[in-house]
């Protein structure tokens, strides 16, 4: 049974997230819940791979809503985010009806919804059922687009010169994510509920591994989570291993029939959680496979 947006409680949201396999603490659930209750966009920041985008996907699933995704990139503009006129079709229409119809009528017809190519933002506004609008990696766009975005997000309406103002049929559930490659403008942040997701604690990561890769034994699961935790603690990492990488590593170890973390295993599989030459070098210099295995197995 999907969640009912109008009768939402924190408890229900917690249950729905857990049922969907997203292991989240109160520090994640409360901001998500508040964003939903206050009808505000949720801005999620955090290192790559901590599960920012996943929240939008989970929300779409628990509300059985359509997930509309706007992937941001440098140079993204309104045309690609909002709408465009299908001018090829318009031209064809002109050609076909050239001598037959009253020109004014044709013109009116040409700028109707029929000839509108909706892009993610407009699609979210026009949706019949409340969708989840994911604006991914918003830090990659430029300041102008950001300004345009917060205009849309504060009023949930846009004006199309030829059509007039389009107001959202349903206020969509909006999730914005940012990898913090640059500071977002105060204006955009002001309009959002803010959530910063850090890497999970060892305990939480054990739970995540249990939920996502149940084949991993209890001992290895704990060792994995502790090892990854230590690796993330290394200073000056270019890219800290993400949760997805922990899970990949866990799956690989299952496939290799490994039951315990040993130095040799770590050396053989290091490429699964460190994807950068500098990081691998730093790892061997600062901690090394042997120490990591010892650290991972020592406690508990």
């Amino acid at each position, binding site marked *: 049974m999907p969640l009912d947006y109008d009768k939402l409680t*924190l408890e229900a949201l917690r249950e729905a997230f857990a049922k969907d396999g997203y292991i989240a603490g*109160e*520090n994640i659930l*409360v*901001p998500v*819940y*508040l*964003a939903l*209750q*206050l009808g*505000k966009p949720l*801005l999620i*920041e*955090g290192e790559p791979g901590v599960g920012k985008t996943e929240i939008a996907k989970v929300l779409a699933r628990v509300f059985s809503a359509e997930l509309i995704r706007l992937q941001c990139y*440098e*140079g993204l*503009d309104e045309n690609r985010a909002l709408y465009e006129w299908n*001018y*090829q079709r318009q*031209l*064809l229409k002109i*050609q076909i009806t050239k001598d037959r119809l009253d020109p004014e009528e044709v013109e009116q017809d040409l700028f109707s919804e029929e000839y509108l190519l909706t892009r993610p933002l407009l699609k979210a506004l026009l949706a019949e059922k409340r969708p989840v609008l994911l604006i991914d990696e918003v830090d990659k766009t*430029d*300041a*102008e687009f950001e300004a345009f975005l917060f205009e849309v997000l504060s009023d949930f309406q846009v004006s199309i010169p030829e059509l007039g103002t389009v107001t959202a049929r349903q206020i969509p559930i909006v999730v914005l994510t940012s990898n*913090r*490659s*640059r*500071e977002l403008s*105060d204006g955009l*942040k*002001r309009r*959002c*509920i*803010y*959530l*910063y997701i850090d890497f999970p604690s060892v305990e939480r990561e054990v739970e995540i591994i249990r939920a996502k890769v149940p084949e991993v034994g209890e001992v290895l699961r704990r060792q994995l989570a502790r090892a990854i935790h230590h690796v993330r603690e290394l*200073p*000056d990492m270019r890219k800290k291993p993400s949760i997805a990488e922990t899970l990949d590593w866990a799956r690989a170890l299952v496939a290799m029939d490994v039951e315990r973390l040993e130095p040799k295993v770590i050396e053989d599989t290091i490429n699964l959680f460190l994807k950068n030459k500098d990081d691998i070098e730093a790892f061997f210099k600062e901690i090394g496979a042997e120490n990591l295995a010892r650290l991972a197995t020592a406690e508990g």
Partner: protein
Amino acid sequence: MDVTSPEKVLVEVNRARDGERSLEAAVVRFAGVLRRLGMRISTSEVMEALAGTAHIDNLDRDQFELLLCATLVKKAEDMPLFEAAFRLFFSPPEHRRFMEGRYRRAREERERMISLAREELRFQGESLDIDERELETYIALTPSEQDRLKEFLERSSSGIKVDASFRPIIENIVKGHLSRRRREMMHGPKPYHDLRPTGDEVLDAVVDALVDGAGTGGSLLYRDLMDISGDELKRTLVLVERLTRQLAGRISRRYKRSARRKSVDIRRTVRANIQFGGVPIKLKYRRRSVQKPRIILICDVSGSMSKYAGFVLQFVYGLTSVADRIESFIFSEDLERITPHLWRRRSFEETVKRLLEASGQWGQGTDLRRALSRFRKEHQHLLTPNTFMIIVSDAKTLGAKEAASHLGAIRRRVREILWLNPVPRAEWDELPAVEQFCRSCRMFECFTLAHLEHVLRERVWA
């Protein structure tokens, strides 16, 4: 009713304060604390926090903290400060009373010291007309320095033919001395908080306790660049790299705008649409290629800048690793091109080693005039309207006048000259060259990473 009896007054006051302690008032005042600690919080965000209280269990402290955090804090860096402030502000009443008491005592102590200082600084038996800020500086001086100042006042008071008309002169001398000492003392991590007391004791006590070191200590961002130790250099480097990446991002975005302005390529469109009888169904576009600006970096590595050499090197290295078209130079008595040493894949340590070995400029005197003149002679071709020149120097140079005229000539050929100066702005008045250079460039004080971040955020590049 006799409201004048002390007990009654106390009851009234407490009642008023209890009323004020409603949840709404607490949230608003807490937002005030955060603002004074340097966070930017708008009224709409406070309203949102208040609206949020209707949806959570306000008696659950964790939920309440998460609510305030999600609505008021919009920057991950501010989280530790927020948490510390929350702990103090929403602490049990007895702890808060203790804090208020401590703050009140500290304030009384300060007032006592100030009146004592006023007593001590006298000319011919009368207190000098100097303001509280200067008196604070006097309090902060070492006892021997204070004695010297007192001695000076005593001697000048008792001189033959010294009468009351000397008073303004003596006052100015003392003021001048104190403000110079103040500037010298300020040359350190600059507090970014607004520390003037508000009169609200709870609020002031919380801000005071936090500034004392509960939440902000250890942030590299606010540390003076010359105080950053060797161990921290690596971490600083990561930070500098992140900042410079933002900078490079800004630069490239600026030029995207023109790149996006695509226009129809008539020739190709006509050719492509011959098949449709000349009706332009398939449009062909052309777009301007993305032009990233060229950056010229000129860093002062003379003796006076040696304490900042670590920062300068990190800045050069960080910028080189994220920006493509960059030419780097160092100078002290002469200019030297170091671009070939800054090879991207080389580690920072290796780069520094090579630079130190290869150049004889380190720790020499400063001659910007010669450096710029050589630049114009040998590297003139680098100056284009699409070039940003960044100079990192303390502006303490020989031949400032000629250097400024060279700078003016360069300015006419580039897009912008930015000057990062590790000397605090308050001391610029004492560097006559600064004014001459400022005519051709935008100068920013830059002695902490926070300053650098500020420079980058100020849309220097836009």
